[in-house]
């Protein structure tokens, strides 16, 4: 039986969600030998506004590249959480930034709340890398792509000279997620 895993990364323009989605897709497709697509939705404005990036991972052909029944939703703003949680499938995972999202929705899904942006700012030293911290969380929570593949994809994709910073961000998110999953 083939599987199809749908991830939506949502927040606002400038948070690097498109890049994070592309890294996830590359980790799965190039390094884990799966099929993957990444697509995005954004408005006509140059920055700001709602942003969303979707990644579909499957061991089969991917017909429709958009999410219809989400396995994992990342919400980095209250607005994106309010707007998209209804698209989660039964038993899906809602991962939110605990500082940005304080009104949590209720439903038949699991909520994981963690200070993603705060960790990027305080532990890694740059709020800018919150997208990569989020990737660490996603790897730790879902296990859908391997740690090794994600590391390779991050190194290959982030701007030259920022590899170490981004790998630290990834390791930070991954460690936190593993702690959370133990409890």
């Amino acid at each position: 039986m083939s599987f199809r895993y749908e991830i939506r990364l949502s927040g606002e323009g400038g948070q690097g969600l498109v890049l994070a989605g592309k890294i996830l897709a590359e980790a799965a497709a190039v390094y884990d030998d799966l099929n993957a697509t990444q697509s995005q939705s954004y408005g006509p404005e140059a920055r700001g506004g709602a942003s969303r990036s979707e990644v579909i991972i499957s061991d089969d052909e991917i017909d429709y590249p958009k999410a219809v029944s989400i396995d994992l939703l990342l919400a980095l703003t209250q607005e994106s959480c309010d707007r998209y949680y209804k698209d989660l499938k039964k038993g899906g995972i809602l991962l939110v930034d605990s500082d940005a999202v304080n009104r949590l929705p209720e439903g038949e899904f699991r909520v994981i709340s963690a200070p993603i942006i705060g960790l990027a700012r305080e532990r890694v030293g740059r709020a800018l890398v919150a997208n990569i911290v989020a990737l660490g969380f996603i790897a730790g929570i879902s296990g859908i792509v391997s740690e090794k593949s994600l590391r390779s994809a991050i190194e290959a994709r982030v701007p030259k000279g920022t590899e170490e910073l981004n790998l630290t961000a990834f390791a930070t998110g991954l460690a936190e997620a593993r702690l959370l999953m133990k409890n």
Partner: protein
Amino acid sequence: MAEEKKIKVLTGNEACAEGALAAGMRFYAGYPITPSSEVAEVLAEELPRLGGVFIQMEDEIASMGAIIGASLAGTKAMTATSGPGFSLMQENIGFAAMAEVPCVVVNVMRGGPSTGLPTLPAQADVMQARWGTHGDHAIIVLAPFSVAETFDLTVRAFNLSEQYRTPVILLLDEIIGHVNERVTIVDPGSLEIFNRIVPSDPPDQYKPYRHTESGVPPMIAYGEGYRFHVTGLAHDETGFPTNSAAEIGRMLERHHRKVEQARDHIVQVDPFMMEDAEIGIVAYGSTARSARHAVRLARETGKRVGLLRLKTLWPFADEEIRSYIGQVKSWIVPEMNLGQMAHEVEWALAGSAPVTRLNKVNGDPISPPEIYQIIPG
């Protein structure tokens, strides 16, 4: 392992740029516009490295003019745009058709009319690609449905334009242009590349618009020592304007014949589960992906549904659709416009089977469940 298999994750726009380079395109002129800009972005970086030329023009009218000039000078040339830019290119597309100048025009479709929906998908330029420029003219239009196929059809667009001396339009939509997808990179040396046929006549006997049997006159590049005239006016074999009804008729007849008699080579469809289908879906571009998924869902419930996917939009796949008369009892045509291809399907079937249209023009893609829901039975 990833190295050996050369697997990459690319967008359709990136694959289009890579395909053009693999086909030998070395001249790009364009004016950036969402959702096509990444085509220009990649080529601005790559073309200078390969000794090619990248020019950002003042607008799309000039872009089209520049690629016509480059092609006449012997270089494979391309431009890429979206709806508003495509409108501006129409006059010069007609010039390329009339003067039989090979070139490739990429239109990554977004919602219209006017500036419309810059970041959202549509398939509303299908008729404009066919009839956007004035006057009866032959044209070839291709529409890929995946990133990998965007690479292949870009190469094919150049091959067809070189082989038939005609502009070829590659219609992507925003979803195909922007989706990142896994592709296996092929060795460029393994690709079949067609280069325009050059004349064997000496310069004093060369006729740039010779009436050959294939309908395609051999073409020499400017600067090779041959002197010839190129015009958008109706012309005779020498390329100079004529008002002779016989000459004009002969020329226009040849323009159409060269594409029509090659239609079996040009027209490509991809049937999916059509062997025993009683319900057929005709779709193209990103909508065909939703349709294929809907077919899989419907097959699970025992419905005999298939998808006839169009890879070539023009010339239209009328014969391919008619080949299912008697077998397919009803058709569905989903498209992100108000029924531009559905009309052609109805015309091809001439009332022999009902056609249900599924149209959406609000910037949202057509999802698999939306198609699945209207499959009868």
